[in-house]
């Protein structure tokens, strides 16, 4: 089986309605599964004709999200992130 694709959530701070939570921005995780294309909420929120964007579930470790403050670094958090918020991290 292929290794899960590693991705980083972009550390963008655009104004307006976005659905990438602040606490995940800049954090690295792995694609857990692909959910297919959905209307981009950043356009839908303003009544615009929305483009279709791939939505992905990304798995983060609590250690990655909270560092030394994590209760148990091996615990997991999963969230849905649109493709335009993700940048791939190539295995070095």
């Amino acid at each position, binding site marked *: 089986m292929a290794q899960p694709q590693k991705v980083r959530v972009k550390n963008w701070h655009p104004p307006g309605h976005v*659905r*990438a*939570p602040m*606490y995940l921005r800049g954090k690295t995780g792995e694609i857990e599964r692909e*959910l297919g294309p*959905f209307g981009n*909420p950043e356009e839908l929120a303003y009544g615009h004709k929305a483009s279709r964007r791939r*939505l992905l*579930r990304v798995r983060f470790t*609590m250690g990655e*999200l*909270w560092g030394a*403050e994590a*209760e*148990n670094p*091996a*615990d*997991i*958090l*999963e*969230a*849905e*992130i*649109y493709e335009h918020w993700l940048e791939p991290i190539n295995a070095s």
Partner: protein
Amino acid sequence: MPHDHPDHSHDADGLSPSGHPYRPDQDHKLTRWQAMEIAMRELLVEKGIVTAAEITATVEQMDRRSPADGAKVVARAWIDPDFKARLLENGTEAIREMGIEPGVLKLIAVENTPDVHNVVVCTLCSCYPRNLLGLPPDWYKQRAYRSRVVKTPRKVLAEFGLELPEKVQVRVHDSTADMRYLVVPGRPEGTDGLDEAALAGLVSRDAMIGVATARHP
């Protein structure tokens, strides 16, 4: 506290004779959004797009949704491994197969096992699988739950009375976009003889959010 003291009124302490606080009448001006809702509804009715009866029927239909539907799905998954596999593979299609119309719901079911405990939150707002569970509890929508369960899930679960051993991995699911989540709790021991309806009776709303386990019979 409720008590009989005919010599004085209870208005002074703000409690009704049965000991409950009075809820003030809503005599304040309508908020902008209340006014907008009424204007939109009246226009839709006036223009013949919907009738008032249809609006009431839709509200009633929404009010009829309850955690009982989700509990039926969990009970079916407990007794039918093939159904459970389909539910975990494609939750939306699996509930349709049970006669529950998913509507706009896109469902991901996640299973609790001896090694993994799942819990659901929507940090951005209050996304919730209403078609399966009805209306969300107030705490689910409040900032305290939404901000704390993603950082200290074990502490939050302990406050709900659920202490998880260190060896159990916690998985928090933040419904940030289009999917909604159903936790399939573990089947309690000692339930081999129970039928599907009795099993469904063990599955609470909180167990399907992931802040509790299924009840023991």
